[in-house]
Structure formats: structure tokens, C-alpha cells
């Protein structure tokens, strides 16, 4: 497979653009970067000047009109919550902050003084009212929303679509920290994606690899974005029922879906749902690979069996 790739950084992680026609790389990358900037300036909770930060600063029982991009991100987050019975909930913002994740992860101190953690369910996504037709949103005072769980995956989907639109044929793959979306005409043998717990892992000869022709792949894990406070290991996947980092039998879940957002929703929900996740993924018809805390791997929903890699 002959492809051309560009790597950079976005959202504090690695951004990768891969195209089937090397002549398309520059145009595709420009289109991807425009989408990333648009998502960042609207959805980041680490930028004081982001539309989300400004919205939350004025949160209360009044309606605010939001941009098309933020509206789409909010609608995506609410849909994720509904489809997962609240396992993926955008109102975890306060809980994430209480757990010590207060700045962009690249600037977060890996170790620090003890912090007080208390079990306290998050406010819940039903506190947010959003009207798509008018793009108005109502957020009660004290409810902090964090779109991080779905906004990065949404950026991958939108970026891949924008890049594909900018090209004259061919295909494109966009990866934002391992949240992968593809668009356009794939390579003959499909897009080959190696599965790892950390998106920064190098491609290795014996690494488990799958091929997709459309849609997206996403991986959620409690093994990355970790930090310590008072000697206690914490991570960024919050269980909305407790408001604390999720305690799950799964440390990493990868999912293939019809788009990157849905893959991300399912992967994150599987971590939070714990033992019930395999049956849920099976019933949803989503190919998934789950790694438990001991490193044992389960494959469900049509995920290719181990050792089936083509040569």
C-alpha cells in the first residue's frame, strides 16, 4: 500500500493525516488543520477564550445561542449520554477538575499533593437542554460540561470529511490521538490500523492489526492520561455515577464503528460499564477488543480473531 502521511500535534496529542495520493497530502492536511482549530476554539475547556469556557462562565437558567460547531459538539455529547444511559456524560467537568485534571494534560504535573476525593454523582446530562433548530442551550449554574470524550472523535470525523471534500478522489485517514476516521475511497486492501493501548506506540511487526474500509476506530484506556495525587493513581475516564475515575475490569477498549464518534462513545462506555460491556457491545453489533487489568484480551462483535493477521 502506497500512502503519504503527515504528523503533527493537536489537542495535546499526535495528529496524523494519511492519504492514498501523495499529491493530496498538503490539501488534506490544510483541511484537517482548519477543522481542528475550529473545534479547539469552540470546545476546549482549557482555553479561557474558547466558546465553551465563555458559555460556562455565564451559565445559568437562561438560553444561550451557540455556534454551529459547538452546537454539534453539544448535541453529540448529549446523544452519547442518551445512548449509553449516562455512562458517557458531558457533565463530568466538575468531577474531572476535582480529580486534579485542571489544565491541558501536557502541562499537568504527573505527581502532586493529596487531594480530597468524594463520591458524588455528576449533575447528569439531563440538566442540559439543547434545541438544535435554534442552537440554543441552557445549562444550570454549577454544571460544568466537558466535551473532551466526544469532541476529539467528532473532530476526526469532521476533519476526514473535510479533507475528502477537498480532494479530487482518493481516500484519507485522520487520527487524533488514536481516534481514527476514514473517508473517501480506501486503499484496495483497506486502511490497516495497529491496535495498542497508547496511541504513541510504534508500529511493530507482531502487533495486532485490523483493516477497515470506512467509518472509524477509537480506543479508550485508563492506562494513559494518568497522574498521581498523594500517591494515588488517577485517570481521566470518570464514572458519572461516582464522579471519580472509573474502576473497571477493563483497562483498554478498542471499538470499530460506522464513524469515529460512535466508536469513541462505545469504547468509553465499555470502560465505565465494566463487566456488562461485552454483552452490550455484542448487542449493538460493534466489533470490539477489550483488555482486562491483567492484560487478557477479549474480542467481541466480529472483531478479527487473534493471530489472523494477513502477511
Amino acid at each position, binding site marked *: 500500500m502506497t500512502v503519504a502521511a503527515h504528523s503533527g500535534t493537536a489537542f495535546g496529542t499526535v495528529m496524523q493525516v494519511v492519504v492514498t495520493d501523495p499529491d493530496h497530502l498538503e490539501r488534506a492536511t490544510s483541511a484537517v488543520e482548519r477543522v481542528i482549530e475550529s473545534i479547539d476554539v469552540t470546545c476546549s475547556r482549557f482555553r479561557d477564550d474558547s466558546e465553551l469556557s465563555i458559555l460556562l462562565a455565564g451559565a445559568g437558567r437562561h438560553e444561550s445561542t451557540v455556534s454551529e460547531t459547538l452546537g454539534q459538539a453539544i448535541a453529540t455529547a448529549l*446523544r452519547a449520554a442518551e445512548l449509553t444511559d449516562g455512562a458517557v456524560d458531558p457533565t463530568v467537568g466538575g468531577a474531572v477538575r476535582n480529580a486534579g485534571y485542571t489544565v491541558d494534560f501536557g502541562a499537568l504535573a504527573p505527581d502532586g499533593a493529596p487531594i480530597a476525593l468524594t463520591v458524588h454523582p455528576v449533575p447528569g446530562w439531563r440538566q442540559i*437542554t439543547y434545541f438544535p*433548530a435554534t442552537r440554543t442551550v441552557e445549562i444550570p449554574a454549577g454544571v460544568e460540561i466537558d466535551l473532551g470524550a466526544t469532541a476529539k472523535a467528532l473532530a476526526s470525523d469532521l476533519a476526514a470529511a473535510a479533507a475528502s471534500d477537498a480532494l479530487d478522489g482518493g481516500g484519507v485517514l485522520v487520527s487524533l490521538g488514536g481516534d481514527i476516521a476514514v473517508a473517501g475511497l480506501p486503499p484496495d486492501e483497506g486502511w490497516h490500523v495497529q491496535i495498542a493501548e497508547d496511541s504513541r506506540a510504534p508500529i511493530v511487526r507482531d502487533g495486532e492489526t485490523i483493516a477497515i474500509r470506512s467509518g472509524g476506530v477509537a480506543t479508550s484506556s485508563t492506562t494513559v492520561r494518568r497522574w498521581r495525587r498523594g500517591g494515588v493513581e488517577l485517570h481521566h475516564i470518570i464514572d458519572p455515577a461516582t464522579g471519580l475515575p472509573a474502576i473497571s475490569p477493563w483497562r483498554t477498549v*478498542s471499538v470499530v464503528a460506522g464513524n469515529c464518534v460512535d466508536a469513541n462513545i462505545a469504547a468509553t462506555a465499555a470502560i465505565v460499564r465494566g463487566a456488562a460491556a461485552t454483552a452490550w457491545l455484542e448487542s449493538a453489533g460493534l466489533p470490539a477488543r477489550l483488555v482486562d487489568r491483567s492484560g487478557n484480551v477479549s474480542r467481541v462483535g466480529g472483531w478479527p480473531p487473534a493471530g489472523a493477521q494477513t502477511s
Partner: protein
Amino acid sequence: MNTPKRRLTVAERDRALRFRKRLTVSSGIAGGVAVVALAALSAHTYAGTTTATSTTLTTTTATSSTAPPSASSSTAAPLATGAASSGSSSSASTVSGAS
């Protein structure tokens, strides 16, 4: 010892009949409202999970005088399925992992 019963006057009888009629009509209206409310509730139920809590109900109330903009929570499409086949590490162009 029983108190002797007094016959109702015509006016008292008519007043009692009017009261019973009002009661019947009120009950009917209340029942109708309940049926409509239950129908609305079931219409907002998705995949066995009731979503007609504050979000959806607020939507209905707040927009009753205009064309109702559907709240995103009441129209969620199910997760879109995808397909994967076996791949080759030698052809892998990227890694899916957490970040």
C-alpha cells in the same frame, strides 16, 4: 336514635346534580390530560429507556407555541456499526490507542 331524614328541596337537588356534572366533566378532562401526557411520554421513550425527563419535557413546554425544535436527546440515532477484517502490521499506517 336516628334523626328523621329531611327531603331535599328542588333547589338543593338541582345544585347537587350540577355539582355531580361538574365533577364528572372535571374527571374526564383530567383523564384526557393524563392520557395525552402518557402518550407524549411514550413517544419520547427510546429503546426502552425513558428520556422524557427534564430535557425533553422542558423542550415540549418551552416551545408549545411555535414549531417544536426537537431536542437532541429525543431523536438519538443508534450507534452506527462498522466492520473490521484482519490486517497486516507491515501495511499499518497508524495506531489506534488511547491518548
